[in-house]
Structure formats: structure tokens, C-alpha cells
């Protein structure tokens, strides 16, 4: 019953991302300095932007949850952070590959953007353990939301702090002061990849939320069935996931 919207979204994601990568591979010029390895930029940068945006979005949803106590927002906050952590792994891996080919090292400590991202990523790695270690579902949502709000605020502040500490050598590809240092034939595939990555994020989030909702409904139905059959409820199994529970 949810699949119609999801199919459209998934289709749009596949088309946009494929289009972006095809354009990036064949249409965009080879960068003079770094050669072909620079192409990873069309994956790495959109992924990083979407992941950071997802972290902040998780914080905003956490704030909305604290204000409204609507489980919907808790679910969105959880899914956004979950997806961003997964994308974060991708960002660190692609970043490492790029750094290896551009600077000859897997990780560059003098590089503020990379270091900031690592710190943020490490912080969000504790989100799941935090949820796991709180048993009461209401408390779990509330505390996770407080964490999401604090960490979401931390993301921009951390970038300021780390940047101040280092002379940066990271390429500033989207320099706002000069109105974009990127030539147009690189811009098109880049922005297309950014849109595609955002769509991917939204699609995967939708899939996860749909899965959680459906599972919650199935559980509710199972419970009703058991009651109807007059069987005694088996001892509740410990939850396998720290995801927000949806009661139908």
C-alpha cells in the first residue's frame, strides 16, 4: 500500500544518479591537476553534503519531537541519523581514496574538513548504542531527541572550530565568495549528483520508515490474533533493534 510512491521515488533516484555519473564520467572535463581520480569528487562531495544535512535534519526532527511528542518525528530523526551514518562511512572511504591519490596519504590531519567530518561521524556512532541502552521506549525517544538536537548544533560549530585550527588544503570547490570556482561543465554533473544523492537519501529513509511501520502493524495484528485465539502471550522477546517502536 506504500509501494506506489516509493517506486516513483526509487525510479527518479536511479535515473538522476545514473545520469549524473554518466555525465561526470564522459561529459565533465578531466581535471588538469589530479587527472581522472578527481572524478570521485562527484560521489564524495554530494555524499558528504547530504550526510551532514541529514545530521542537521535529524536534529531538527528531534527538536520537533521534543515540542510535539509526536512519534513520527522521533522516527524521522532516527532514520535520518541512521542513513547519515551509513553515508558517512561512504564519505570517509571515498575521501580516503581521493586523499590517497591527490596527496599520497589515506588520511590528512591538516585537512580541516576531513577531520571535522571524522569527529562528527564518531559522535553520531554513539547514537545507536545510546538508544539501545535505554529500555523505556518513551524515554529512549526523548533522550535520543536531546542527543540529536545537541549533536545537530555541534555540526556547524565543530566545522568552525576545526577550520580555525588549521590552514586548509582541502579544495574549496564551492567557494561562495567567488560565486563558484567550478566551471559550468563540471557544475552540471555535480549538482545533478547532489540532487541524486538527496533523492537516494529520501528514498532509503522512506524505505526504512515504511519497513518499520509495516512491521509495527504486523506485530499489532499478530498480537490481536493471539488474543482472539485466546492463547497466552509468550514472554516478550528482547527488541533486536533500537529503532522507535510503532504501535498500530
Amino acid at each position, binding site marked *: 500500500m506504500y509501494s506506489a510512491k516509493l517506486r516513483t521515488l526509487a525510479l527518479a533516484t536511479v535515473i538522476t544518479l545514473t545520469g549524473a555519473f554518466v555525465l561526470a564520467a564522459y561529459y565533465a572535463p578531466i581535471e588538469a591537476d589530479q587527472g581522472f581520480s578527481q572524478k570521485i569528487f562527484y560521489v564524495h562531495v554530494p555524499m558528504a553534503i547530504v550526510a551532514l544535512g541529514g545530521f542537521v535534519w535529524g536534529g531538527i526532527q528531534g527538536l520537533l519531537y521534543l515540542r510535539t511528542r509526536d512519534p513520527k518525528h522521533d522516527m524521522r530523526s532516527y532514520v535520518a541519523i541512521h542513513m547519515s551514518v551509513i553515508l558517512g562511512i561512504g564519505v570517509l572511504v571515498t575521501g580516503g581514496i581521493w586523499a590517497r591519490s591527490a596527496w599520497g596519504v589515506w588520511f590528512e590531519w591538516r585537512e580541516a574538513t576531513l577531520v571535522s567530518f571524522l569527529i562528527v561521524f564518531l*559522535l553520531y556512532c554513539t547514537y545507536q548504542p545510546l538508544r539501545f541502552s535505554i529500555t523505556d521506549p518513551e*524515554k529512549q525517544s526523548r533522550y535520543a531527541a536531546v542527543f540529536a538536537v*545537541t549533536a545537530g548544533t555541534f555540526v556547524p*560549530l565543530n566545522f*568552525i*572550530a576545526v577550520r580555525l585550527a588549521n590552514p586548509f588544503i582541502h579544495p574549496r570547490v564551492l567557494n561562495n565568495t567567488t560565486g563558484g570556482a567550478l566551471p559550468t561543465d563540471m557544475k552540471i554533473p555535480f549538482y545533478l549528483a547532489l540532487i541524486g544523492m538527496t533523492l537516494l537519501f529520501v528514498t532509503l529513509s522512506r524505505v526504512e520508515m515504511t519497513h518499520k511501520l509495516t512491521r509495527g502493524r504486523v506485530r499489532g495484528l499478530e498480537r490481536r490474533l493471539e488474543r482472539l485465539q485466546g492463547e497466552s502471550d509468550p514472554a516478550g522477546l528482547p527488541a533486536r533493534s533500537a529503532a522507535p517502536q510503532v504501535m498500530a
Partner: protein
Amino acid sequence: MTAAGPRPPRTTPTRTAVAALLRKELLLERRVPQVLPAMALFSVVTFVVFRFALDTTSVEGRTASGVLWVTLLFAAMLGAGRLFVADHEEGGIDALLLAPVDRTALLIAKAITFVAFLALVEVVAVPVFVVLLLEPGLSIADVGRLALVLLLADIGIAVIGTLFGALAIQTRARDLILPLMALPLLVPVVIMAAKATAPVLAVTGSGAPGGRYLAVLCLYDLVFGLLAYAVFDFLLDD
């Protein structure tokens, strides 16, 4: 009870509540010293560990600044884990929730207590550090500069430590999860504090800490202070 209709609830002013809570904290620590001696002892032991781990008898400049901040930060993590233990186990938080006071009074009182604890630990740890490890020693002007950086960093550490101490106390993992959450959050404090302290501890003519590092420390304290003030309520709402 002569007045018809609901009367406005009478609440104790926050300042009175904070003062009472502060008195309680300090009295508790004075009667049964628990956290402070542990933190101080931990700092000294860590200096000894650094002496052998770095295999050096004296440090200066950036290394000195790093040794000092790592030690103080880990000692602070030790203290943050204990900050709410007594209240949680003896029902102090429930009592506060029953009392007609603003809940943020607890945050303010705990954060001030934590800053005081950190300052007291530093009063012990910094001289020990200077005697044991620091190569050039400190001039009077350096002590003043160092104190300023320490104070600004302590406020940030105390705010994060209090907020996440209150969060971690309700989880099963507790001491396990607190440093995992708080250390990444405190990395900007360490960056700024270490950068600001390094010239003060340098052997080649001490310099003043860079103004922008202190400014970012202030910004950090302000942002997370306000944030903690805004969200702390939700950690107690039971």
C-alpha cells in the same frame, strides 16, 4: 483557601533553589570526599604515565599543552560520570521534581559545582604538572593567562559534562557511553584550549594565547550553555 479559582502556583525563585542545591553538593563532597580526590589523584597518575609513555622527563610548548589537556579532560570525564550518581540512587532527582522549583536550577547548580570541582582539581594538578614535567616553569603572567584559558575551557567541559552526565545516568551503559558521547563533543574545546595554552607553556619566551581561540571558546560556552538550558528539562521529565 478563601480565594475562588486556581491560585498561581507558588514557586521558589531559581536563585534560591540553585543556592540550596549548591550548598548540598559542596556539603556532600566535604563530608564524604569522593569525586575530588579521585579526579586529583587520577591527574597525577596520568602525568606519571605520560612521563613513561612519552619517555621524556620534561615537556614544553605543544606537547606540554597536549599532556595537560588530555589529563584534565579525562579527569573531567571521571567526574562527569559521578555527577548525578548520588542523586539518581538516593532519589535526589525525584525530590527535586516534587519541589516547586524550576528544573533548570539543577542544571545550573550542577554545572557550577562541576566548574568548581574542575577548578579545585586544577589547583592541585597544574602545580604538580609544572613541578613534575614542565621544562621552563611558569611566570606570574603565564599563570594568569593559563587561568583564563582554564576557566573558559572548564565552563564548556562543565556544560557538556552536566548535560551528558544527566543523559548517561538514565541509560544502562552509563559510564561506558558518557565519554563516547562527550569526548567528540569536546574536541573543539581541546583544539582551542591546546592552541591557546601552547605559547604560554613554550620554552622560548612565553606568548599570550591567540585571541581568536579564546573567542571561539567563549562562543562554544555560550552556544552549548544556552542549548543545555533549553533541553535539560526534557532529561528530567518523568
